[in-house]
């Protein structure tokens, strides 16, 4: 779904969200309450610049609109794969974005992530995955890395990885896998505004993804290992 359609369904045609390059930003009204919307589109690669742009928007909301909820709209091909971004410390810029969102949450801003098209690891690990919860549209896809690069790094045959991506939950990019593993909280189906309403109502500060992964059966060990560390003599 393209971002305009999504925004219109959520907030009406006069939503006021503006696109500047790959960056989306707007202050909208939802259920009579103001809401900050920040996002990316066109499968944006996230480099230092776009990470900082998003961070600036989060900082501005904290400064000017204490307590206002934030909705992060995610469509990214992952981190920008350029030497310049590495030189300038893209990992630091990403951490900065994540820490801005994390502080916003600690200061009482609810933060909801929504993968509405695609997301590759580095592109949303410090946005959607650091929010109170990351939701997704049912057709969205989440990947760790594109298969050719993955094959090169792991030295596993690309054909094997492709086969695993069809059927194996650990590799398959469909967001239903991420729901089963606890990484995505919920899929937004049917009435999108109602889904947003529920997302805002259910936002809470504890990271419950390991427990969700165990309860849903997609990631059976993480929660028990965490508990065993807590209980170890």
């Amino acid at each position, binding site marked *: 779904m393209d971002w305009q359609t999504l925004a219109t369904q959520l907030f009406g045609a006069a939503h006021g969200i503006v696109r500047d390059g790959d960056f989306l930003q707007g202050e909208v009204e939802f259920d009579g309450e103001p809401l900050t919307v920040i996002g990316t589109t066109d499968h944006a690669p996230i480099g230092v610049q776009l990470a900082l742009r998003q961070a600036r928007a989060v900082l501005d909301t904290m400064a000017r609109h204490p307590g206002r909820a934030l909705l992060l709209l995610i469509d990214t091909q992952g981190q920008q794969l350029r030497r310049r971004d590495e030189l300038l410390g893209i990992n630091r810029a990403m951490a900065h974005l994540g820490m801005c969102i994390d502080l916003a949450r600690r200061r009482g801003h609810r933060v909801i992530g929504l993968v509405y098209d695609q997301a590759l690891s580095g592109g949303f690990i410090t946005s959607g*995955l650091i929010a109170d919860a990351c939701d997704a549209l049912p057709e969205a896809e989440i990947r760790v890395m594109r298969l050719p690069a993955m094959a090169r790094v792991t030295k596993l045959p690309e054909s094997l990885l492709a086969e695993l991506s069809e059927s194996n939950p650990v590799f398959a990019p469909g967001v239903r896998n991420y729901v089963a593993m606890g990484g995505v909280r919920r899929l937004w189906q049917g009435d999108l505004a109602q889904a947003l309403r529920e997302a805002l109502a259910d936002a809470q500060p504890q990271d419950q993804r390991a427990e969700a992964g165990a309860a849903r059966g997609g990631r059976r060990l993480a929660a028990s290992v965490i508990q*065993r560390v807590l209980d170890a003599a």
Partner: protein
Amino acid sequence: MISYAECSARERLALVVDTGSFHEWLPPALKLTSPHLAQLGVPSSFDDGVAIGRALLAGQTVFVAAQEGQFMGGGVGEVHGAKLVGLLRRALRERPRAVLLLAESGGVRLHEANAGLIAVSEVMRAVLDVRAAGIPVVVLIGGSGGCFGGMGIVARCADHIVMSDIGRLAMSGPEVIEASHGVEEFDSRDRALVWRTTGGKHRWLTGDCDVLVEDDVVAFRTAAISALGAVRPVTMESLEAEHARLSARLAFDGAEATALWSSLGVAGAERIPDLDVAGVLALGA
């Protein structure tokens, strides 16, 4: 001098903390191995590549984790990540003097793909919880594998980073960048280029790490002890200052480290790759 880079994770851990003080949680004898590797014909490791526990550092209680870079490149899988999250959550309960992370990792363990990505994200949130509780998180980076991917982000979520000149701290590995945009973008086999762009000297000169040390376990231990008080609260003010600092970097044009160092006012930038750690520290003083 004992090379930190040449030690295994367990050897580093044993030498950094007070002698004999390490008490391991979920030790290898429990055989908590990865549930995902056998299907790929890859052998597991009894500790899933990370040793965690409690130790003393200069007589003070610290929680410590050491990632084994030789196993799956130190990549974070489901069990590995859960061990780190458990350690960090336990720190919230017991409030050690610090949490010490001897990091050597490529980031998400690709062989565990989705499970690894969620695991790294959980580690990230847990580190920030510990930091918010006022417990310093100190990261040591000195393995030949470096600290990349999601772990490169986790490192920058910590209070304090100690690196040797052998260590690297970045997001994407040079091979992945080269595979995407060609050898002209980043020649992954040009070691000097790789270290200029992501190595400890560069990160220290730009302030992306706090301390630069020799490749010596004693130097890392000394730096870790010094870092025990290094709490840096995350506040609006600190984030605004960080934002200004990072935004200013965008004014630099290009991708060449020596040019960047010159622009930062470092004299004799071209000689830096040939300087030893003491020489670089003298420049930055």
